[in-house]
């Protein structure tokens, strides 16, 4: 039973090994020390609340109130206050749901899949991306829950036998969504929380040392008695890798099931076999778009350039480019097979998308999702942080329009021309969706104010001084 090990005597060719010099990018700039990293990240929480934070928080609360008002009005009046009308009985609610769920993919992708792929650059952005995931899932959940109309019956979604013998339709992917999203949300929270434990303990100790007993108590409560012992770290590492293993299929399954919401139907433009991987790629694409949108201002405001380096921005841009190109491949394949399949309804659905009443939406989608990321081929673009931020906004816009195009164009022009219609959102829908950006922002602002935005221990582990080989070539 051969078991490959290093041979005692090196072969001759190893004597010829003389690698060209091409240093890897550093993950923490300017050789920052461990204490600098701790001070920098804890300083965001420990320092006085900056004025900009309050301004942003007030504006975000105001914007969030639009969602609250929209939902209150909906519940008080009925779901008819949304702009749905035959044949488009499903529009902004599901568009917004898929949009937010898609954004919620990057966090767990960065934490789980990049962790399994041993991509060390993820350490600077994973905490904030995980937080973003949870907040995005919260925003996403609003829409299907309120679309049931009588919100007080939302619990019918769960398979709880009751006296009215209402059984859920387990053959519906919408029911699968309930389980997929709730499982994903739960595991994402767990993953995020487990990762936070060592950092919460750091904050507990620092507040204690600073004499702030109350905050020390609160952080200590949530730190679950973390002492940083070898045993704690060993259990932590094991839990983290297991959660990464569980989360990876979950990340893929959630958007796969979301894609099934459409693909299991017979509607032209929806029933296509590439939907599952195409939706997953799109979700990662939009998730990274949002990570860039959030992290670049955070980096500038808090002076985190040594922790979110140009290399991190490069990596995020390249993933956005790769997933955007995969999405472009899926668009092309859909269009091609719609023609190749020679089904007149399918062909019409795609021609209608590109040249029909909603052509404006289609071309916004193509411009934002296929053309925009191609700018990331250029180093000069990736090095221009302001431009990257603007392009990331385009990605977010494009991915919202992707869902709009898929859902609304197919429904508005279905099999029966006499029932064709043109969907326009009602002001209530617009306000409700607009407000979710406020809900998201409120939660994110609270996060950056009260929790460490980066995993300190993980960041320290990727510094040269943490390298057991002392940072030289031999690993």
């Amino acid at each position, binding site marked *: 039973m*051969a078991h*490959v090990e290093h041979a005692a005597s090196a*072969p001759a*060719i190893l004597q010829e090994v003389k690698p060209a010099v*091409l240093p890897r990018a550093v993950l923490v700039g300017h050789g920052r020390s461990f204490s600098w990293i701790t001070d920098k990240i804890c300083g965001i929480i420990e320092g006085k609340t900056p004025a900009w934070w309050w301004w942003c928080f007030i504006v975000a609360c105001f914007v969030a109130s639009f969602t609250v008002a929209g939902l209150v009005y909906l519940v008080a009046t009925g779901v008819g206050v949304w702009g749905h009308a035959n044949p488009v009985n499903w529009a902004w609610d599901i568009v917004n749901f898929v949009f937010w769920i898609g954004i919620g993919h990057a966090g767990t992708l960065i934490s789980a899949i990049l962790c399994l792929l041993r991509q060390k650059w993820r350490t600077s952005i994973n905490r904030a991306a995980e937080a973003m995931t949870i907040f995005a899932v919260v925003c996403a959940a609003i829409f299907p829950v309120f679309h049931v109309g009588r919100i007080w019956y939302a619990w019918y979604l769960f398979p709880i036998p009751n006296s009215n013998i209402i059984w859920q339709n387990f053959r519906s992917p919408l029911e699968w969504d309930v389980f997929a999203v709730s499982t994903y949300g739960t595991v994402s929270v767990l993953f995020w929380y487990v990762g936070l434990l060592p950092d919460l303990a750091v904050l507990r100790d620092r507040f204690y040392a600073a004499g702030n007993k109350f905050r020390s108590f609160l952080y200590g409560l949530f730190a679950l008695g973390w002492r940083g012992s070898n045993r704690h770290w060993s259990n932590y590492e094991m839990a983290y890798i297991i959660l990464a293993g569980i989360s990876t299929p979950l990340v893929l399954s959630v958007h796969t099931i979301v894609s099934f919401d459409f693909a299991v139907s017979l509607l032209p433009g929806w029933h296509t*076999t590439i*939907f599952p991987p195409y939706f997953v790629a799109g979700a990662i694409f939009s998730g990274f778009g949002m990570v860039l949108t959030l992290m670049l201002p955070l980096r500038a405001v808090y002076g985190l350039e040594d922790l979110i380096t140009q290399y991190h921005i490069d990596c995020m841009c390249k993933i956005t480019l790769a997933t955007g190109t995969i999405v472009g491949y899926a668009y092309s394949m859909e269009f091609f*097979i719609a023609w190749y399949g020679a089904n007149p309804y399918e062909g019409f659905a795609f021609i209608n998308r590109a040249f029909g009443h909603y052509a404006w939406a289609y071309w916004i989608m193509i411009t934002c999702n296929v053309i925009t990321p191609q700018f990331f081929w250029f180093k000069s673009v990736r090095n221009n942080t302001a431009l990257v931020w603007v392009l990331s906004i385009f990605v977010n816009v494009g991915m919202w329009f992707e869902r709009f195009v898929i859902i609304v164009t197919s429904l508005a022009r279905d099999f029966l021309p006499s029932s064709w219609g043109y969907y326009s959102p009602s002001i209530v829908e617009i306000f409700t969706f607009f407000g979710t950006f406020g809900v998201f922002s409120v939660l994110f602002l609270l996060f950056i104010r009260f929790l460490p935005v980066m995993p300190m221990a993980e960041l320290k582990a990727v510094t040269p001084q943490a390298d057991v080989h002392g940072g030289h*070539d031999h690993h």
Partner: protein
Amino acid sequence: MSAQAANAPAALATESATASTATKALLVGAAGLGLTAVGALLGPDKHGVVMSYLVGITYWTAIAIGMLLLILIHHIVDASWSAVIRRQWEHATQAFTWLFVLFLPLLILAWVKPGFIWPWMNEATPLHGGHGTVGTDVLYQKKSGFLNLGMFTGMTLGFFAIWIGLSHLLKKASVAQDSDGDTKWTFTNRKLAAIGLPLTALSLTFAAIYWVKSLEYHWFSTMYGVWFFANCVRGALSISVLIMLWLWTRGDYKGILNTNHLHSIGQLVFAFTVFWAYVTFSQYFLIWNANVPEETFWYNLREVNHDGHTNQWWYVGLVILFGHFFVPFLYLLSYRHKVIHSKVKPIVLWILAIILVDVCYNILPALKDGHGDSLPFFSLNLLWVATSVAGIGGVCAWAYLRSFPTTKLIPIRDPRIVESLTHHE
């Protein structure tokens, strides 16, 4: 200098052993191709032989494409651990030239006897069930701008031009770096990878559509290119493991390869096992669930005959379901099964075999009897599949072994070579 002199006899012996193995591979290839040719010329079912040959060429081309993709991905992500294996992929992709040569008989046959392999190439080909001919088929008429002999030929030449061109350029730059150690070669290959990845993705998609999917030209699935991609990479990874074990056994890789290389590549085999299952399940599930006849007929052909009786392909489908996914999935969950030679070798051989069954499942049911039912899986065609796979595989192995001694075993001046040699978790 003196060390080199001392190693010279050993190197010469290794080179001689490689040449001898190459000759044996060529002989196997010639024998396989010869037998296939005999079957095609003298056998009772020439159509079956040619379709079996298509299985062979598709199978090996898929694996070569997978190797090319692995090189491209290696360069684009600036990978480190795979640097010690990359040179073997560069050798293996030299088989594209010979795969092109071996594809020519099919291309020539397509021109000489249109419709013999791909029915849509001849508008006079009758449709099953007496529904006229291909030329009168409205579904064909709609697709004729794409499905025509000229486009097929041009596209196939284009696919091979892309694959041959990329594989030569990638190897050239990689070998050049061995001499001068210039990092410009790393950047050259990185740029090539950036251009090559979309080109390879598109070419493999359309190759799968033209060569395999269009055998049933009524059928369509947007997932098909992704399915083919999954098999390409999975097959390439499996062959890579075999090459690694072979070079270890010969002694070349001793002191170079460590347990972590096998673990990493084993993890990729595992990941692509899941990915293949995900893609294949999604395609099957969405078609089964929608239950639209224009899509389900492709699976029906592989499940039941016209009289409603289950045919052999249904059982082949089950073998694929369990063999392609469950068996390798459960087996490769274990760390030991990925790194111990005697344990990893059987599973990659199994995967290679089951990919072949999958390719058969996609191609051979296009052979039909008078009722329009697919001919059984267990037939003389399996013999021709075996001779074709051995023949084309022998030539591919020869092409690899022919290229093997022309360069250093590993890219000795690659910037990431030390990281790769010391690869650890």
